[in-house]
């Protein structure tokens, strides 16, 4: 009986320790009622949450819940998709990214992206890949490019293995190395936010581990938003977690947003619990 009470108090003390949004610190990106529709068909909606600075926010949910669609709205990658429409408001450091005075190219240099499959430019060398973002944005000074290339490759934990072969084609690297190269390429622009769309789904477990380790150090300098299918991954690496689910009309919607600890331990919504416990999805 005494033991039971002890356990009860332990759980209670844990729940009271849940970090409240105020403790999460300053906001990097703010999403208010965000919805994305393709040709009038809603793919994801009702997304309202804050992405906190220097934390890892994960978007989890089963296939079709609109995680990737939501992520791609954060750097306006839907702009070139015919029929795509983003409603609601998304702001970066207080500036609305769709209606504010922020050009789409500037936005994308401040909000970088790493894709599901490693996609280094196949015709470019490792070095050219890393500095490609800087070159696209008009930076030509060799010393600056060299400096940025080394710093970015170091940040992506790739410098030691590629420093001697920077001029080699990027396609010669292994899958995991290619993905780290893509991270380095995004970091070279010194973004404030890094979007990652299932960055380890095409990689083997060891390469996955490398990327996860990397993310823990990355959040010191960049805010990370990551889409993941892998719940253990979300639990391991993220600080905050948004759970999305496909509604009855096949449109994804935000079910719950909170700290990862709360989402995985005692979420408010029973569906969140069912998903994190693996009862569906």
């Amino acid at each position, binding site marked *: 009986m005494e033991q039971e009470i002890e356990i009860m108090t332990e759980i209670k003390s844990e729940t009271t320790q849940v970090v409240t949004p105020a403790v999460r610190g300053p906001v990097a990106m703010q999403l208010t009622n965000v919805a994305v529709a393709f040709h009038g068909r809603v793919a994801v909606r009702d997304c309202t949450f804050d992405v906190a600075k220097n934390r890892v926010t994960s978007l989890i949910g089963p296939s079709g819940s609109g995680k990737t669609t939501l992520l791609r709205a954060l*750097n306006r*990658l839907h702009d*070139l998709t*015919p029929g795509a429409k983003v409603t609601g408001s998304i702001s970066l450091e207080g500036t609305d990214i769709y209606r504010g005075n922020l050009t789409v*190219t*500037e*936005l*994308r*240099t401040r909000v*970088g*992206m790493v*894709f599901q*499959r490693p*996609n*280094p*430019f*196949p*015709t*470019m060398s490792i070095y050219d890949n890393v500095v*490609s*973002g800087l*070159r*696209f*944005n008009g930076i030509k000074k060799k010393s600056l490019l060299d400096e940025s290339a080394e710093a970015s490759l170091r940040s992506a934990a790739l410098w030691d293995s590629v420093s001697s072969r920077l001029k080699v084609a990027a*396609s010669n690297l292994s899958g995991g190395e290619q993905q780290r190269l*893509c991270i380095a*390429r*995004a970091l070279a*622009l010194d973004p404030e936010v890094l979007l990652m769309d299932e960055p380890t789904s095409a990689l083997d477990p060891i390469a996955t581990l490398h990327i996860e380790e990397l993310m823990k150090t990355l959040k010191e300098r960049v805010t990370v938003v990551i889409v993941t299918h892998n719940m253990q991954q979300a639990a391991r690496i993220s600080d905050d977690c948004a759970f999305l689910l496909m509604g009855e009309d096949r449109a994804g919607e935000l079910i719950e947003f909170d700290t990862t600890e709360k989402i995985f331990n005692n979420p408010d919504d029973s569906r969140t619990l069912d998903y994190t416990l693996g009862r569906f999805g």
Partner: protein
Amino acid sequence: MSELIELEEKPLEPDHGMREEIRSISDSVRARRVARSRIMVALCGVALFIAAVPLVALLYQLFDKGLSQIHWKFFTTLPMTPTLVSPNATGGISNAIVGTIALTIYASILAIPVGVLVGVYLAETDSKLATSLRVVSQTMAGAPSILMGLFAFSFLVHDLNIGFTAIAGSFALAVLMLPVIIISTEIAVRNVPNSLREAGLALGAKPHKVSLKVVLPSSITGIVTGCILAISRAVGETAPVLLVIGGGFTNSWQPFDPVSAMPLAIFENAKSEWPSQRAQVWGIALVLVIFVFILSLTARIWASRKQQVRN
């Protein structure tokens, strides 16, 4: 429940008689299929033979009659008109070789930059202009080549009064090459995976920069192959140059000189009253065929080697 019992009552041993029966049926079916397959293979072989006969006959005649015409002076000297005193003095075809190369170079300079840019534009945009440009280039690809010659004649030679010149012929050839280059470029550019475009855009690159710095280099193999094929088509075309290049009798590389070309030399010599000049036609034709063959071989080797590098 009754079903369950029935299942249990069924013999666990397989029914050998039934299996034999199935096997005998499948044997006869297999035999029929094998026979049918052999007949089809035989029919394909016959079709291949029929298709190969004219090709082999053509190549045989080409080499049989052409090889004897070819000697060193054939490449290095200008043509001569035979006389009654020396009925076999036909000279060489150096002017036609120089003319063909010059025409091809000028036509390439005119057609390749425009064609490649239009092809990239068609592949990268979805505007109404792109759709109509695509229709135009596809229609032009099927247009009779004499039309290009007529156009160059009436527009350049007559209206603009630039005379019978290499550049007029190059223009006609360039118009002929354009659709080939545009279509092959568009296909090559469309084959570039979208993930690379997105990677470029996500780095804050403007769309035109993505096209030029990411998409174009990634599709260069297909584009170069298409250009070489367009060139090898232009090299052998007679009709577009027939009306406009003037049939020059000098080894001139100048764009505003009249020049000759191998197809034109074949056309002119074939009409000659001198048997020696008529015989020379086969020599020119052989040189032309080898020329085109080398070009398309280059395109193939280039394409396959680049493919290996990519893999």
